[in-house]
């Protein structure tokens, strides 16, 4: 399917974090993922891989100091 499922990979384990991702936008503080229904999340992460056939995005969280810390929720 064209809409993707996003995972965060950590120590070789993939955890599903979002379904129906329609858009990915690089922001100064990370990657903003937005679903078809308009729900957004910001991930302090890099893209590890995108599989356009399976519809999967794998993110790896980063501690890159060039990413400012995210505000506390």
């Amino acid at each position, binding site marked *: *399917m064209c809409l993707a499922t996003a995972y965060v990979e950590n120590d070789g384990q993939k955890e599903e974090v979002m379904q129906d991702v329609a*858009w990915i936008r690089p922001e100064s503080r990370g990657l903003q993922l937005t679903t078809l*229904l308009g729900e*957004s999340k910001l991930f302090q992460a890099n893209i590890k891989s995108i599989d356009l056939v399976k519809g999967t995005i794998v993110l790896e969280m980063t501690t890159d100091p060039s990413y400012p810390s995210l505000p506390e929720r």
Partner: protein
Amino acid sequence: MKIAVCGKGGSGKSSIVTLLTNGLRKRGYRVLVVDSDESNPGLYRLLGFEKRPTALLELVGGKKNVFQAFSGGSEFPQSILTKDDIQTRDLPPQYTVEKDRVRLVCVGKILQSLEGCACPMGALSREFLKRLSLREDEVALVDMEAGIEHFGRGVEAGVDSVLAVVEPSFDSLELAGKIGVLATEFGIEGAWGILNKVTSEEIALRLREELEGRGVSVIGSIGYDPEVFQAGLEGRPMPCSKAEKDIEGILERLF
């Protein structure tokens, strides 16, 4: 109860949805018909409405507008579709047409060449049906796109029952068998075949045996009805016909 009506192209899904709708309405139910077929344009006519409602896809800005909003950095429109629990009364009036306790909503239609695939419609159908909360006197009937791609998109995650419409053809039987398997994989216990356009008892018996051999139980049979055929040819509402009597037996078993 949310019921998905599936089957091969041309098997009569929209006609069966209309017959079920009319039968349920007469039994006192409120019926929400969900047009989840992104291609065929005419379900609203069969149901006797004068126009199709604005597509639910427009609630998220429509394909074109959402892409523009994204590239321009503007806010995404929030809508009832982000609610976890959608009641039929929450649907904004412009997104439904309503008459005699029957409401029609349309997920979205392919309008232009090269506009992209129908995946957003599939995802929207799935999320809408998952979040749709019905009262006891309400039933949702989903007119699916032809074939089985909707299973791949997970639309059936939001329904309780699946009806596979089968016309007298080998491909239709094969597809219904596949639908039965896919519905089972989804954990849907209520999956049945409906025989349609049946011209004789012999044909009905043959189809029933063939389907049961493919693991699909038959819930009822609709005879070939020239009046239904003629209405379909002319784009008229479903007429009162003997097919209405045939659908009664199916409703008896479903409700």
